[in-house]
């Protein structure tokens, strides 16, 4: 696993709660807010299960620690989106909290019902970007959530040992966390 230079993290007393909110003006019309909220809730819960950090949704967008929105093209942060596929999303290192998704993608909350060949699993991307918001950079371990790429119609939202060790080194372990063999990753498959 890899950290950002300077190893930034949210500098608050542990255990901490981070709030998140969705930009009301920057959503995608074909997904309901309930579906989007559900996918993010699952993604946040994955990280919260391994570290003593909890995530709470708030309606007060301007005061939220983590601000989530779907944007097209140049949206003012110097990192323009590029249309279908290519770059899917980006998030900023701590403690910025900015989380942007490319509105041009076909975001899916259920790959079985979404038949598009270019559908991108929202929960998988959300889980990856939350890793950035917490302070993790891209990992070279292919099975890890923090690996930088994700194929269309693929689901990769389960945290692997590489992700868990990385984030626990920053925030400590959730006292209720239990390691499961499914979290192991086979780094030999990288070659």
């Amino acid at each position: 696993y890899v950290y950002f230079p300077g190893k930034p993290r949210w500098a608050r007393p542990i255990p901490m709660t981070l709030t998140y909110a969705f930009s009301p003006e920057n959503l995608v019309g074909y997904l309901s807010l309930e579906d989007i909220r559900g996918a993010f809730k699952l993604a946040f819960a994955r990280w919260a299960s391994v570290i003593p950090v909890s995530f709470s949704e708030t309606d007060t967008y301007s005061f939220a620690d983590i601000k989530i929105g779907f944007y097209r093209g140049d949206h003012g942060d110097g990192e323009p989106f590029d249309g279908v596929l290519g770059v899917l999303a980006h998030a900023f290192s701590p403690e910025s909290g900015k989380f942007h998704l490319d509105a041009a993608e076909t975001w899916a909350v259920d790959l079985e019902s979404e038949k598009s060949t270019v559908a991108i699993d929202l929960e998988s991307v959300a889980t990856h970007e939350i890793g950035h918001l917490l302070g993790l950079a891209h990992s070279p371990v292919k099975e890890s959530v923090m690996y930088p790429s994700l194929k269309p119609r693929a689901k990769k939202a389960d945290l692997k040992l590489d992700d868990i060790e990385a984030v626990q080194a920053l925030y400590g372990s959730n006292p209720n966390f239990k390691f499961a063999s499914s979290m192991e990753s086979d780094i030999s498959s990288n070659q």
Partner: protein
Amino acid sequence: RPPPELAPSPATVVTVKNGSYTWHGFQRFLGARRGSRISGMAELKKYFNRFGYLGFQDGNVTDVFDTRLESAVAAYQAKLGLPVTGRLDSETLSQMMSPRCGMRDAMQPMHAAMH
């Protein structure tokens, strides 16, 4: 009057031609190595620049596969757990054309500017 349809409405099917994928054009660089000159290779250099592998010193981006691009390819392969060859083999190009996160791989973190 016909009864209301109980079956779910058919899911929307969206098809996108391969050629419209953002980095699909990189396929033509398959097999390229140091010394190769292929039209459009400047776009490949911009990709490596965007994700933190290649700096542009003088702004003059050519279509030549030079030693700096070779180093960038090798760094990319090492960073993404691919066999390090310094060449644009099929595994490397397949990885490069995959959709991905916009965060740089080898980089300074993205900082939000405070206004």
